[in-house]
């Protein structure tokens, strides 16, 4: 009889200890889930805030400056289609391209720094690559830019590709 009572007592203690452990683990798990979801929510809120800032402060008011940049580049490069230019003439055109690039930085790209450093870097690199490509094409002896097909492929194509690339960067950041 004593043996049976002792075993019952033993099982009762084990049962209580198990309940305490389960309750404790449940509490820990609940706290973990609360902290995890709160952090995730905060991170999402921060991203939403950045996206909203990008849309309202920068894109709505300044996206026109990005498109102006590409229109200005087209105007700057246009004379190359009509006649052969000397290296000094090309230097002047490159000088204007650099002015256009600086304008873009001041009126658009720099503003992205307030939202996201990586976004700024990507847009800056993309616009730099365009100016570098156009500079190389205009000084490339083997390309005849007075030929419409060559001009379209090398100049218009590069400008169009750059514009698509930057819009893609902005769109992917927003989505």
């Amino acid at each position, binding site marked *: 009889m004593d043996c049976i009572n002792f075993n019952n007592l033993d099982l009762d203690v084990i049962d209580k200890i198990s309940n305490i452990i389960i309750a404790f683990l449940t509490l820990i798990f609940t706290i973990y889930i609360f902290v995890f979801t709160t952090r995730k929510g905060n991170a999402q809120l921060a991203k939403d805030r950045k996206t909203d800032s990008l849309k309202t402060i920068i894109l709505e008011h300044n996206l026109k400056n990005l498109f102006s940049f590409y229109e200005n580049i087209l105007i700057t490069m246009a004379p190359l289609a009509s006649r052969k230019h000397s*290296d*000094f003439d*090309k*230097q002047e055109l*490159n*000088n204007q391209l*650099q002015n256009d*690039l*600086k304008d873009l*930085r001041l009126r658009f790209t*720099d503003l992205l*720094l*307030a939202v996201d*450093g990586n976004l*700024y*870097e990507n847009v*800056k*690199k993309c616009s*730099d*690559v365009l*100016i*570098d490509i156009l*500079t*190389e094409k205009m*000084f490339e002896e083997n390309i005849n830019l007075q030929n419409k097909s060559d001009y379209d492929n090398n100049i218009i194509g590069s400008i169009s590709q750059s514009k698509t690339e930057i819009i893609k960067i902005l769109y992917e950041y927003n989505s």
Partner: protein
Amino acid sequence: MRNQIRLEDYRTPKAKIFTGRDRGIQVREDSKIDKLEEEFSIIEFIIPTNLYSINPSFFEELFVNVVTKLGERGFYDKFKFINEGNYNYQKPLDEAVTRILRKKTALDI
């Protein structure tokens, strides 16, 4: 090792321009400019003749470490530019320095 960098030494034969980030990185590494900056108080930077364009992207990558370290004034105090030709390198150089410091300032905030 001399306190002088001749851009001509890094020019592709017959090239009239220096453009691109990759080229800037390559010249930075090949010229060991960061090491020269540590060893000398004054460094001469020679811009060659028969040059028609240096884009800011090239200068930005070439000078990114020294400008970040020295700041604008320190950079221009230490690096003395000598122009052997007629190309006006000052405008793209100033733009590159501004960009480097603009980014650094924004990231420091």
